[in-house]
């Protein structure tokens, strides 16, 4: 280890310092002053974001090859910070209404973010696994954060059991890989397929299953709805985007960095998984009457669209087209992160009364009761559907461009048809908000300035990124280029 190593991991160091600050300050704050933790976390994350900026363009492998700070990882880290800030802003009011501790939430959240940072920067299977566990362990805790709530307990437990199962499979795959290639370096496992024979295929299968499990791809998605439904709603928002971002960092690293170099043919697997995932998620989401659960299933469908970007990456031969696949993944992950966490939070805002549930009926007549909130939710839902001019539309467009350009137009058609399918259930919420009368005793709405502010910036981001994505794209291109 030398000084260069430390400058390269400045963001990680800053984030770790922030966790320690929050942890310590929490001990000394009186109950009524705990709200200070939110500004501390948000401002601290601002500094972490700045630290990410300092390593942009560095493109170094440090710590004797275990850790790689390239622009791809920096993009993932910046997206992580954005999601972290939104989660820190959306959650406090919801927690306060349920008398849940804010300090613990912030600390666990930040720990999870560190895991995502490590995951994004791993250039070795060992680091990768450590990062993954560091990300998901806090996520299990967050899912069960509402200690006294049965559903939250159930969700947390399911998430934990199935998540550990997936981790075990992944780890097993890693050990097979090591056995076959005598290396855990991502850059050196490329020979797995060409030299490994049948055993190599088994190893790849286990790596695939383990990592797509984390991304909640069909048929490895069964933990998702229960884990998402049980968790406190804004936390669900985080769980549906944060660990998913991490899972895609994992996939990009294993398949892009590791297996991609060898030109291994994993396109077929990825394309089929993408198709299954988007279709399966959408079909099940159609049947949901609980908005929270519907959003949970729809997040599976979005996983499918993102996987299509990876499939395009795998199928393309031209480097520029290959990069486009990764760019699509990155753009989608970021855009999806902002819109989905905000959409979950709107559900949370309708649960000011802790006994109320996020059913469709809670949305009935919302346009009359809270026109601005309804309009915000409508924009988010249109974005999730993929209607312009929103970030969700441009994200889908990016994936479509990548797939068509890579010569897998059939996948693009599948995405288009799936988007129409998804329109059905997303628009149903709009139907309830705008075209139905409110129920007799409408659920009270959280109108706190903090949550409203967070929602406002999310919606502004959704529209701004949809109308003028150019600045982000130039970052994306540089990030994706650093992989190839």
């Amino acid at each position, binding site marked *: 280890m030398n000084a260069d190593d430390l400058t390269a991991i400045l963001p990680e160091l800053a984030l770790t310092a922030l966790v320690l600050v929050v942890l310590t300050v929490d001990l000394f704050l009186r109950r009524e002053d705990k709200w200070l933790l939110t500004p501390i976390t948000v401002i601290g994350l601002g500094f972490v974001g700045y630290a990410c900026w300092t390593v942009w363009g560095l493109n170094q492998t440090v710590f004797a090859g275990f850790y790689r700070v390239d622009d791809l990882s920096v993009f993932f880290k910046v997206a992580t910070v954005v999601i972290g800030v939104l989660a820190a802003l959306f959650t406090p009011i919801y927690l306060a209404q349920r008398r849940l501790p804010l300090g613990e939430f912030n600390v666990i959240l930040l720990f999870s973010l560190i895991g995502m940072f490590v995951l994004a920067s791993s250039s070795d299977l060992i680091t990768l696994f450590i990062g993954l566990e560091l990300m998901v362990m806090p996520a299990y805790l967050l899912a069960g954060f509402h200690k006294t709530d049965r559903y939250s307990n159930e969700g947390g437990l399911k998430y934990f059991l199935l998540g550990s199962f997936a981790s075990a499979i992944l780890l097993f795959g890693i050990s097979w890989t090591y056995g076959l290639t005598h290396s855990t370096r991502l850059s050196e496992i490329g020979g797995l397929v060409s030299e490994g024979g049948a055993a190599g295929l088994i190893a790849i299968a286990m790596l695939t299953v383990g990592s797509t499990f984390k991304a909640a791809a069909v048929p490895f998605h069964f933990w998702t709805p229960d884990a998402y439904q049980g968790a406190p709603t804004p936390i669900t928002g985080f769980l549906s985007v944060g660990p998913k971002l991490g899972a895609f960092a994992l996939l990009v690293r294993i398949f892009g960095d590791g297996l991609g170099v060898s030109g291994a043919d994993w396109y077929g697997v990825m394309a089929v998984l993408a198709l299954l995932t988007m279709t399966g998620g959408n079909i099940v989401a159609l049947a949901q009457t609980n908005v929270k659960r519907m959003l949970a299933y729809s997040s599976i469908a979005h996983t499918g669209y993102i996987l299509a970007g990876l499939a395009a990456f795998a199928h393309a031969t031209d480097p520029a087209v290959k990069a486009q696949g990764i760019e699509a993944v990155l753009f989608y992950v970021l855009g999806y992160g902002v819109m989905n966490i905000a959409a979950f939070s709107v559900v949370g805002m309708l649960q000011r009364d802790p006994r109320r549930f996020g059913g469709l009926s809670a949305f009935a007549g919302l*346009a009359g009761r809270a026109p601005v909130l309804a309009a915000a939710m409508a924009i988010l839902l249109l974005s999730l559907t993929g209607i312009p001019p929103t970030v969700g539309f441009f994200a889908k467009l990016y994936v479509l461009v990548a797939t068509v350009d890579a010569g897998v137009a059939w996948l693009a058609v599948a995405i288009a*048809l799936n988007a129409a399918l998804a*329109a059905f259930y997303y628009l149903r919420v*709009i139907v309830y908000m705008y075209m139905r009368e409110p129920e007799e005793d409408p659920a009270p709405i959280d109108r706190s300035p903090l949550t409203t502010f967070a929602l406002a910036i999310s919606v502004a981001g959704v529209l701004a990124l949809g109308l003028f*994505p150019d600045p982000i794209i130039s970052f994306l291109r540089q990030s994706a280029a650093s992989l190839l």
Partner: protein
Amino acid sequence: MNGWPILSLVVFTPLIGVLAILFVPSRNHRLIRGLALMAALASLVFSLRLLGYQPDGAEFQYREDISWIAAFGMRYTLGVDGLSVVLVLLTTVLSVVSIFYSFDPIQTRVKEYYATMLLLMVGMLGVFVSLDLFLFYVFWELSLIPMYLVIGIWGGPRRIYATVKFVIYTLVGSLLMLVAILAVAIAHASAGNPFTFSYETLRGFAYTDALQALAFVAFFLAFAIKVPMWPFHTWLPDAHVEAPTAGSIILAGVLLKLGGYGFLRYSLPLAPDAAVAFAPIVIGLAVVAILYGAMVSMVQPDLKKLIAYSSVSHMGFVMLGVFVFNTQGLQGAVFQMISHGVTTGALFLLVGVIYERTHDRQIAHMGGLNAKLPRYAAIFGLFTFASIGLPGLSGFIGEFLVLLGAFQYSGWVAAATMLVVIISAVYMLWMFQRVFFAVPSDWMRRFWPTLTDMTRNEWLALAPLILLVVGLGVLPGPVLDAISPSVQRILDAVNASPGLTSFNLPW
């Protein structure tokens, strides 16, 4: 006003209206209505500037071109040719009419209503003036959501079913079209050209047969659903019956034209070989639509449904005119679009007039209205005849030109279509007779004492449409002059396409 971004002003003035309305307290109905009408009128006034379009000048005039999303070469390119000019004018006129007409009927959620209607205007106008495929797609989708809200919020009892059906149908088509747009742009870029969505660049490129065929099918689905063409028309009667009057006016008057416009502007120039190859199928479907729409109209018990099905028939003429690939056919198709917009818009408005008084649209419930509401009957009669295609009114010109075109294509097609001229007289006149001359039903008699003839506002709303339907019928020259160079260019481009004779389907 040279140098002004006229087209941007036309398209985005309604958006300024939306923003203004958002800041008005929702109880202040008068101010909201006033602002909405002013915004729509301002857009109309700006669009009148397009009358200065020079048919023998450059192909696209009043151009604006700004880089938008440079990463993929998407540009904010606007421009109009004769085809766009007439459709833009139709849109602004019908929007003003429908907004003005809504003053009395719409009493709930007024603020949202006018904001939505103005947003709809932005989307529709944008489609007609975009010269960038991506921009076109954005406007295309933008016109969808407001209509969804208009039907879903201010519609009739089965409005939610109708509006969801409308949206899902349209989305399926348009998302596939998006894939086709991307495929076309990528094929162009893969040949070593810079990535662009510019219509003027992309249309001149020789795409492979397979891509043309697939792109044509995708575009066809999107546009055929919008037109709507048999057998993709089933959303239309539902949407029309449930939509509020102003929604029906816009739906029939403008939204259906987006489909016809799409065929002319995008399907033919981008995939000329495939368009010619598929023409017999499309013509077949068009003839079926013309006949089917007319026959189904005969048995409709509901006034709105009758007019909705007659739209299927009339829009079939548009499709027929487009795909016979000759000058008369194309000119007739465009003229028919304009005429249908005016006529059907007016008919829906007139149905709205009686609906406001009786809250019923069943033909069987009417009768004897001629004696009680003579002025109403006279105007209804005028538009009934325009719809049938009586010479001297606008409907005649379009149908006549399309039939001329069809004869050049095939006598059989023209003969089959001619039949419909008779059937359309049957269903419209029979409807007119039952509503206005038959013995009043018991139902209608209950309203007898309170039934009043057309109000001043209704007259005002109808006045521009009356002027247009007569004016276009007597003096079609200016419109035909404006559109003929544009359609001729489209036709020449198709005929000059090198792959026309050697086209092979990929399957």
